[in-house]
């Protein structure tokens, strides 16, 4: 069902914690416990090391590519409490900005929708979430949400810029309705939604369902329907899908996707948001899709290269 088409030997000297393709799938950024961030050109099945970025003093947990309209920009966050934003100029990568405002490991970084410019959300083990906004001329504006999650924040993910459903009955040409929101997950077992109002960030919703640390959250891309969807996964082995049908964004209904036998580390949505990838401690990645009757079914089960089609739920097997 799937095949390996290219294997990139990163030459990292320790565990790899994150790998991300850029917007077009031409570049790959990786980060590791060896404190480095590497960038590879992977066009046409190749693997050319483009940059070996050193600047962190501890394991680097995540990397995130900014939208290409801002140039080639990559953010990284690390155990060393720093967030570094790297930029490519004339073929070489350099530090564009270094943020040291957290008191503990920074676990997650996520760029906001390009409609809001260059804005980065950072979640940290000190429980705070920082929002770094580029205001031009090497200046960054910092807003901090302290005590966002007690004990620590593990993940942040931005909502699409446009209010869901606003594209329906909207005459084209009219400026769509923007809203600045993101979701976070923390060691307080909670999933929280944050909204910016009048220049201030406020806690908008508190979603309770997990019984252990929330490891990752993901806000699904919008396909124009008046529904918002968020996925969350936790140390408790559960993955929940949260949906909200009202445009005001007030009632979120959880649905248990599945209970796994081990920690679930990551959830991520495909580009059109119709497939959710879940990776867990059982060394597998499963892909999930919403079926005709609204329930979620597993459409593939991939463990290290072999493929198999299997269903876990009792619903009809969906199309491949």
């Amino acid at each position, binding site marked *: 069902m799937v095949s390996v088409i290219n294997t990139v*030997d990163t030459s*990292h000297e320790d565990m790899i914690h*994150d790998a991300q393709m850029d917007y077009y*799938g031409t570049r790959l950024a990786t980060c*590791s416990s060896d404190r480095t961030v590497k960038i590879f050109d*992977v066009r046409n099945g190749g693997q050319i090391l483009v940059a070996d970025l050193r600047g962190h003093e501890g394991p680097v947990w995540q990397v995130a590519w900014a939208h290409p309209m801002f140039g080639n920009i990559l953010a990284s966050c690390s155990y060393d409490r720093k967030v570094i934003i790297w930029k490519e100029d004339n073929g070489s990568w350099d530090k564009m900005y270094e943020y040291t405002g957290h008191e503990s490991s920074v676990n997650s970084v996520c760029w906001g929708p390009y409609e809001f410019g260059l804005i980065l959300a950072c979640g940290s083990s000190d429980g705070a979430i920082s929002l770094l906004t580029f205001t031009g001329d090497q200046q960054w504006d910092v807003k901090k949400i302290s005590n966002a999650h007690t004990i620590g924040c593990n993940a942040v993910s931005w909502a699409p810029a446009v209010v869901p459903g606003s594209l329906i009955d909207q005459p084209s040409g009219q400026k769509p309705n923007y809203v600045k929101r993101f979701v976070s997950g923390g060691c307080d077992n909670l999933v929280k939604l944050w909204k910016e109002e009048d220049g201030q960030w406020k806690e908008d919703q508190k979603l309770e369902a997990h019984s252990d640390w929330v490891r990752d959250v993901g806000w699904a891309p919008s396909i124009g329907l008046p529904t918002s969807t968020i996925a969350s996964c936790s140390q408790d082995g559960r993955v929940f899908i949260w949906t909200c049908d009202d445009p005001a964004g007030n009632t979120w209904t959880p649905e248990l996707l599945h209970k796994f036998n081990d920690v679930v580390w990551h959830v991520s949505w495909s580009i059109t948001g119709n497939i959710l990838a879940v990776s867990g*401690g059982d060394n597998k990645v499963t892909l999930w899709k*919403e079926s005709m009757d609204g329930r979620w079914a597993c459409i593939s089960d991939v463990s290290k290269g072999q493929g198999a089609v299997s269903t876990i739920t009792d619903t009809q097997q969906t199309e491949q």
Partner: protein
Amino acid sequence: MCQTSAGTHLGFAWGPGDILVYETLYKASGCPCIHEVRKDEDIYSPILRKLFNESHHIFVGLQTIGEDLPSKNKKPQFVSISKNYRSVIRACMEELQQVSILLAIELIWNLCEVLFIDAAPAGSLLLHLLDWVRLHKADVDEKAREVLQSESPAEHHDYWNVVVSYVLQGRLEEARQMLVKQATLQPAARSMYKLMDTLLSKMPFYNPGGTQTLTEFDVKWRHWHEEVDRCLQDNSFASNKHLEVICKILVGDEDTLLEHKDLLSTWYHFLVTRLLFCHPTVKPTELHYYAQSCLTMFLDSRSVPEPLDSILLAAFEFDIHQVIKDCSIALNNWWFVAHLTDLLDHCKLLQSHNLHFGSNLREFLLLEYASGLFTHHSLWQLAVDYFDHCPEFGRVYLELQIERVPLDTERKALKVLRICEQRQMSEQVRSICKIMAMRALRNNRLGSALSWSIRAKDAAFATLISEKFLQDYCARGTFSDLDLIDNLGPAMLLSDRLTFLGKYREFHKLYGEKRSGEAAKLLLSLMTAKIAPRSFWMTLLTDALPLLEQKEVVHLSFQDEDTELTKVELLRLALARNLARAIVKEGTVEA
């Protein structure tokens, strides 16, 4: 966060399109590798590319068939389109060595055309099914050729196999011609061969275009059937086991048919043959009963039906949704189900099967197919048309996907841009123009950056680039990209800085053409209109210098500002000179 659990962790990230990236946990003994993984879709096969390209053409044509005609008048058009799709499949089969999947696809499509699109009624139905079987059992002709080309065809070891195969396919004329060869070798059995020839020649075949009704045909056929049966009972062919076999086949004896499994080779050939000799007036609704029993009879107890068998069975049961579902699972890409479902939908054969997110089955499959195409470096353009014809989600899917097309060259960017502009996807247009503008700026191509930011209607960026142009001028004393700046037109109004740039260049042009009066007026207006950036005022004043040196008296007045000392001195000197000249001139006139 530190992983403290003992479990290993397989990392994962979506790439654009369907390229997934796996990370592996690296322990001291391992290798820190990232695997790029891709779904096994056949879009990367160069031969299938032809299939995608040509079927795209047919697809677009189908969408534009007039809505004004009632469905039944459109049937011949739909059948013709179905045949077009099939001929594309066959064309690809000829190029591909490994044809089994395409053969299966064409087989299924053909059956769907017969049963669903053409929807032949009893009488014609069997004839169509006969055609269907004959088309997909081409080895008979090969064998026949081999036999006929041999020295003594009637003695060839495959001779009787060919004759029986012809009979099984209802190709009685050809069977008769073959038998003639045997008859000449056995003059003693001439009457027996004559009898067989007569039986074969008299078998009635329904003529849909003729005046005979189905009932009349049925009566005629039964008479013939009885005659054949009589011959069997009379042992007319008892002394020739081959002719006896043929007679039994003609009477529709199941056991005899099953004895020739190797010649039939498939249960559906068995089905059609059985219907031909037992029930040629079979109705569409009766098919499934015969299909199921034939499948069971044909497969021995050990073998299990394959996916293809289930699909064909579902077709005979007229369960269109099951056919589509089974094909979706069995096949490696969405091409077949997407196009077939689309055609069936146009024929109004699909009940709206509402999926949870509000789209119907046709749209769902087309979206899956087109999304798959988007990962390909050139096929993505075909996908655009498919998205266009998905009324519910096509547009938003296109918006999401088109932003991921790598803008490797300016030409490609323009292509993508045109697609977005044609569909009023203003956000995407802006985004693409901004990306190109940024890229041009990074490569120091200011002219290109400026024109992209104008196209993006990005005032902020236009301002930034205008600044760079002006800085460039200050540094080098000349402008670059004069053509662009000279022809800005109304775009100049996008940002103040840009307007200033345009007007400033105009000033230089006027000055160069020695239209000093107009130049001076423009310069003055630039200074007073407050669109000149403060940092540029010194430059403007310096530009004013030569004007002040002109023989003609040009009256200028400007505000006093903080400026460099030497330049101020120069100005004072120039002003003093100008004043002096003015006084002299006035004095001269008066005197």
